[in-house]
């Protein structure tokens, strides 16, 4: 049987062969922890990919199922001693499934979700409708109706979006305060911009306070992360090129406060070499603020830090956010068990695979309760939405925030 992978973005056989089948990644994989079977482990998934590449497996419905179930959290990359680049292998395989795989049961839902989320204007419009519908009292009627039960994905989306504040655009330039260090761009992100506009405001404020001129191009679009994870590689390349065109090339850094965006942008060079400069300059906000001198007032609280997958595993950023939070006087960082185990958000995974996502969320909330924290900080809007929903639904009284929000509060207290 000839190999099943023939498309231009298919994973490379040599890359697949770096897996020595040791299994060290297995216990770190959230889907293994939920499902307890080899097909849903990183080792099993790489084995399936390699079998497809070598012509020992076909791109069947079953094959696609185990790849759909992968969160793309990349915890396996952190664990792997052999340097297997699982994220890339997954993206390439999903591109192959899109090209030559079976028709997907939930393709319609995925198409709908991908038509809304990465388009800031459409997401804004959709959220506007949602607000109107909440006000009208229709929400209860719809929630109670069979419609949501028939479409578990929509039910998941509805449950996520608690109370949505209206978005407020940032000015295109926020000048540095005091001694200038240079100029950075700010990616405002599709979800962040509309659901957590406060996080973008705080990010810009802190960066300016740290001495950076902050450029916020109005015309910026989506980073393309969701498309990359779905294997829509052509659309992703397009996004990369368009984003590289709106940010000036003389910026010191392009800053993101959404882990998913940052991780995808840091990979631009692999997919569209002409955008490599942008990849090289992309930084998470906590990386840029790590050395900044910020006037921080007291914020007495027990805070747990949740490692967003695409920050800890995708960008290997773990210490900076913790160190920043630990600098706030009075703030006590409490240990959160399994802090880098995915919360189930994973881009649009919680909409596509509500059952597995629900189990992971259940565990996450339990660990949070055990930690005794009153505030949970996480560097990705998907995690914020997901964990907030989990706590809300279980009546757990914990505040869920982005680390920059806590820093901004501490700055306010310093005055």
């Amino acid at each position, binding site marked *: 049987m000839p190999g099943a992978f023939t498309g231009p973005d298919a994973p490379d056989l*040599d890359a697949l*062969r*770096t*897996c*020595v*089948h*040791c*299994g*060290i990644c*297995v*216990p770190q994989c959230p889907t293994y922890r939920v499902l*307890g*079977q*080899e*097909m849903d482990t990183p*080792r*099993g998934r790489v*084995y*399936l990919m390699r*079998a497809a590449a070598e012509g*020992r*497996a076909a791109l*069947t419905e*079953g*094959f696609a*199922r*185990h790849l759909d179930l992968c969160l793309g959290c990349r915890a396996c990359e952190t664990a*792997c*001693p*052999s*340097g*297997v680049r699982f994220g890339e292998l997954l993206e390439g395989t999903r591109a192959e499934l899109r090209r030559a795989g079976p028709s997907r049961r939930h393709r319609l839902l995925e198409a709908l979700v991908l038509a809304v989320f990465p388009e800031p204007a459409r997401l804004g419009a959709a959220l506007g409708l949602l607000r109107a519908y909440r006000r009208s009292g229709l929400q209860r009627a719809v929630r109670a109706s069979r419609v949501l039960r028939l479409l578990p994905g929509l039910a998941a989306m509805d449950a996520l979006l608690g109370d949505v504040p209206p978005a407020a655009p940032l000015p295109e330039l926020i000048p540095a305060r005091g001694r200038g260090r240079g100029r950075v761009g700010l990616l405002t992100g599709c979800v962040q911009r509309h659901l957590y506009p406060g996080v973008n405001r705080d990010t810009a404020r802190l960066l300016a306070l740290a001495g950076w001129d902050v450029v916020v191009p109005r015309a910026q679009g989506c980073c393309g992360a969701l498309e990359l994870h779905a294997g829509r590689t052509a659309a992703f390349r397009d996004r990369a090129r368009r984003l590289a065109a709106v940010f000036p090339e003389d910026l010191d850094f392009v800053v993101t406060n959404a882990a998913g965006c940052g991780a995808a942008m840091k990979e631009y060079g692999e997919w569209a070499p002409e955008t490599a400069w942008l990849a090289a300059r992309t930084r998470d906000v906590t990386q840029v603020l790590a050395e900044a001198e910020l006037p921080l007032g007291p914020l007495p609280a027990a805070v747990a830090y949740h490692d967003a997958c695409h920050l800890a595993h995708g960008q290997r950023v773990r210490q900076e956010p913790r160190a920043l939070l630990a600098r706030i006087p009075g703030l006590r960082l409490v240990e959160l068990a399994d802090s880098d185990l995915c919360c189930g958000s994973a881009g649009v995974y919680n909409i596509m695979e509500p059952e597995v996502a629900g189990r992971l969320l259940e565990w996450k909330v339990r660990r949070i309760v055990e930690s005794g924290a009153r505030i949970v900080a996480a560097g990705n809007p998907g995690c914020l939405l997901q964990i907030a929903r989990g706590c809300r639904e279980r009546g757990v009284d914990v505040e869920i925030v982005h680390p920059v929000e806590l820093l901004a509060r501490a700055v306010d207290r310093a005055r």
Partner: protein
Amino acid sequence: MPLTRAVVEELARILGPDGLIHSAEGRLVYECDMHAFYKGAPDVVALPSDAAQVQAIVRLCRREGVPVVPRGSGTGLIGGAMAPAGGVMVGTNRMDRILELDLVNRCATVEPGLINLWLTRAVQDRGWFFAPDPSSQMVSSIGGNVGTNAGGPHCLKYGITVNHVLGLELVTGAGELVRLGGKVAERPGYDLTGVAVGSEGTFGLVTAVTVRLLHVAEAVKTVLASFPDIEAASEAVSAIIAAGIIPAALEMLDDIMIRAINEGSGADYPKGAGAVLLIELDGPAAEVEAQAARCAAICWERGALEVRVARDEAERALLWKGRKEAAGAVGRLAPTYLLQDAVVPRSKLPAIMRELVAIGARHRVQIANVFHAGDGNLHPLILYDDRNPEELERAKAANEELLRACIAMGGTVSGEHGIGLDKAKNLPLEYADADLNFMYRLRGVFDPQRLMNPQKLLPSHPACGEGFRPARPRLPDGAWI
């Protein structure tokens, strides 16, 4: 013979809707353990959640004459968790609970699927640990450790798995649920626990394990010494042991391995050295202090380039992480390797190391070394690219020569990984016919129909009742050890 529909349906009834895997993808990923060279897909994979289900599966398979193969985390290196004759593979992954923690009596009873390190994690806050620490401990299951009688770096001082198993609950191949041993070590009658540990699932399926827990030592110190070459390091090992010191662990790594590990885990092993010794001492603080100083002096005497002590627990943990991930990190150097598990008397270490270098040169293969130097348990990794058949042949030839050299020096074919399919054919090199026949009959007591993990551990028997007629001392063609 594939399973009949009726059998599959009955299995599904026993296990419930999520407990049975029979998809093509499922069977494919369960076809091998870490030693991916040996492949054999089961007809179905059962994922039971308790002992009652396990017993029902075994009884059904016995009635129908279907082979049963146990599997824990699939990290074995011997062609163990694979199904050469098809049948039902029983994965213990969903039986991973700690059934009882009895710290007063210093023991715990756990299900076989529990990950080794998770047991230590559950008790370390209270100052306890589970001693057997195979390098795979962050993923391998306690059931698998029991099946292969796994060792590990710290077995130099603490002993291997069998020394830490107090009792077992076992569903025998005959379908009975029996309890062997128990919390109290001193028991009347036969020591059946000792017999069953290391039986690699050929007696039946373990459904619970009672293990001994130990108290964490007062002090621990990890000394890292680098040497210009393996020989000098080997001399240092012999000298340390001769001085009457029993380190908790005494590990050696060569330059190839050091390179792979430094890249893989970010551990900072000395670069440019020909060999590194990782020496861990534990016990009362004063004793540890004195022994560490003595070990350092011995290393300097034997020509060490550098001797240093891990500064803190974080550095120590990173050094061990690097050491334990060694076999995985080698994937950075070559896509495939043959991994040996031979043992030589400790005094022969320098000699076997010289021989090993010569063998590598003769067959033009890279040999990476990481091993338990303290007890002479070698793990040479012979690197090759499986896409090049000629290279594979060279690797196999080097492997065979290496094995012969070990046996010629009075060693054995397997230290701690187990026998599985890989090494079964080599047992006649070590045991007389009468010994093997006795083991074969013993297996029959637990598993009269010989359906439990067929083809593993013992070389295939020509016909029931006949004795072994192994060709000795010649090794079978292309023996893999």
